[in-house]
């Protein structure tokens, strides 16, 4: 019984080490590059972001139009 527990714990520990080895080997980029890419993405897409830019009421599907138009 205790042998089983011991070998189980060993397997768990081996798996943990294997996983840590995998995660340690990840290729990382510098924070400056990550930050720049994030900044650029946000700035380049800013004009396309309705919540950021605001939505004119005529273009807002959630707002009823102010006047009645007949088309």
């Amino acid at each position: 019984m205790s042998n089983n527990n011991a070998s189980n714990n060993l397997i768990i520990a081996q798996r943990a080490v294997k996983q840590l080895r995998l995660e340690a080997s990840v290729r990382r980029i510098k924070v400056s590059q990550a930050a720049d890419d994030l900044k650029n993405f946000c700035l380049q897409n800013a004009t396309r972001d309705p919540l950021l830019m605001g939505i004119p009421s005529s273009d807002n599907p959630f707002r009823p139009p102010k006047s009645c138009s007949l088309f």
Partner: protein
Amino acid sequence: MGEMEQLRKEADNLKDQITAARKAMQDTTLQEAAASINVVGRVQLKTRKTLRGHLAKIYAMHWSTDSKLCVSASQDGKLIVWDSITTNKVNAIPLKSSWVMTCAYAPSGNLVACGGLDNMCSIYNLKGKDGNVKVMRELAAHTGYLSCCRFLSDSEIITSSGDCTCVLWDIETGTQKTIFAGHQGDCMSLAVSPDFKFFISGACDFTAKLWDIREGTCRQTFGGHENLSRINYILDLCKLYDLRADQELITYQDSSIMCGVTSLAPSLSGRLLLAGYDDFNVNIWDTLKAERVGVLAGHDNRVSCIGVSSDGMACCTGSWDSFLKIWN
């Protein structure tokens, strides 16, 4: 045992290696890199619609990819599909178990899913022939509550559970395709990458893990390699992690905020981060400057869920006050 000691030492060494490797990438901070950008102007969103109909706390909501319909789950035992523009209830689906904790809309719009304390993920077909919405599949295998689910397609869904695992299911056969094991605590939420190749899970072991869906492996772990034994109370924070730099970039906190974050949603460009809190409000953060630029106040109880539609036109909040609100 000699080998256990060796493995423990190796594990500690590897954790130190990871910490050092991350530190080596810290040639600046997001704060410094964004210093030249101005904070976004005050964001004032208004409630455009209130979706009334649930009779109890709302625990989850998810937008359909059409940016018009959305689904919500409440502990009144109902899943409601709403037309957010007309506020009409398109479907009101009675659930077998009222202890629902999550819901999801399939990208196709054909299916919705939900689950909770029943430990199952139930899939409903919205486009059945006779117009009735019925249970299409009950995905049962988790040994803990279903905390979150997200469709990859009409044939695959990923679930996260209180049993500490996430699972990729084949909906057709109702079987588990892949089990993502590794978390040491209840898995509470998950988010799928836009290309459907990866997903991130958050768990009660204080970590978030990035999983490769097809390989079934955990690629990266965030928040867990530090020694957390010094923390003797739970501090609910909002942090931004960068996958490629493999580390935290910034924390969204304010001394005036004394409560926990329940839910998060970025705006379309990523510049705004909308976060729902226990104090009944939603705080809007400038993602790059980590400054609060707006507040959505209107709910009379905890904001439990939040989502921004795919076209970025609106934000939907769900609350324990039983209402959903659409803001823009």
